[in-house]
């Protein structure tokens, strides 16, 4: 999305938020971050926990990756972007894991393997890279990260609600479990297409 020139700052932030949460939603439009989306959406509490954890990591990561990109990499070390971003994200995820293990061990146990897996979540790496590509300034990249995370959490929670209802449905046996979840995710992104074209 080209650099928003001329619009007052507040309006760009709102536009960024609307675009990342609804129009090109990380999961629904950009099809990023599918493995936790499928893995953690079995129960609502796990989904909310996962959503918040990813939001926390994503916002921090976008901020940190902006600083790294702006001050450390500058213009000639662009090829180091992916490498450094991954290191930063891994560090933040480790910190989040310890933090969650300390504050609510139950959530830590429920999230299980998916908590460290945030590092490999392609949305978490995707957003900082998109930030860097679109040369957002610091606040814009924070909003972009927060918007992406909010979109991810919103869709994850909605999907968890649906999957809990799907458990009580009499789904034909070949479609039970993950396959009906995949179909539902497909229909969800079909519904999210309604927002396409919302933001120029």
């Amino acid at each position, binding site marked *: 999305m080209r650099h928003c020139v001329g619009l007052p700052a507040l309006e760009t932030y709102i536009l960024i938020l609307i675009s990342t949460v609804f129009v090109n939603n990380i999961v629904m439009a950009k099809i990023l971050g599918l493995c936790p989306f499928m893995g953690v959406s*079995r*129960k609502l509490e*796990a989904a909310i926990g996962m959503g918040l954890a990813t939001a926390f990591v994503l916002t921090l990561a976008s901020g940190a990756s902006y600083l*790294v990109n702006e001050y*450390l*990499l500058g213009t000639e*070390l662009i090829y*180091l972007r992916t*490498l*450094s971003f991954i*290191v*930063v994200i*891994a*560090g933040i995820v*480790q*910190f989040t894991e*310890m*933090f969650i*293990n*300390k504050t609510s*061990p*139950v959530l830590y*146990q*429920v*999230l*299980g393997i998916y908590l460290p897996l945030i590092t490999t979540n392609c949305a978490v790496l995707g957003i900082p890279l998109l930030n860097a590509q679109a040369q957002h300034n610091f606040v814009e990249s924070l909003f972009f990260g927060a918007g992406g995370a909010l979109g991810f959490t919103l869709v994850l929670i909605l999907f968890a609600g649906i999957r809990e209802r799907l458990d009580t449905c009499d789904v034909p046996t070949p479609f039970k479990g993950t396959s009906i979840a995949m179909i539902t995710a497909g229909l969800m992104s079909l519904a999210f297409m309604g927002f396409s074209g919302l933001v120029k």
Partner: protein
Amino acid sequence: MLTAILVMVSIAVVIGLALGWSAIKLKVEGNPLAEKIDAILPQTQCGQCGFPGCKPYANAIAKGEADINQCPPGGEDGVKKLAELLGVEAKPLDETHGTPKPKSVAFIDEQICIGCTLCIQACPVDAIAGAAKQMHTIIAAECTGCELCLPPCPVDCITMEPIVEDLPHWKWKHPVINLKRVA
């Protein structure tokens, strides 16, 4: 080339320090999960899971050494509850640890019992009343049906009586609305 290495090293050092500091501050001890698992297990203390009682089995599951389908008295929904708690896939019961049997209570045939107290020492929940050379009898309310008292008995006077459903314990059955027969 040099600056690239410098940059990467500096990022790594900064993050390493931050993590080291937070690792100390956010130390976590104890494993509250074991109690949660123990709450699900049926507490028959029968040892069919290969552990001397339910608490050791719970600790083993918490540490990941034991599988969640080794408890026949817990039955299928016991495995399902454990799977739900640990967020893993529910596996069918492992037959090598024995098959789930209808809940039953031990019964001592008082004609044959010689009062040797071997079963009293073997009972994990002290559900057998009696003393040396005195008559032994089983407190039905507290017997968990773990069958640990059967092997030590020298005269084999203990039998397992399955609990028969009487009026106060009668349960409504799952109503079957079978669409397939409808046509």
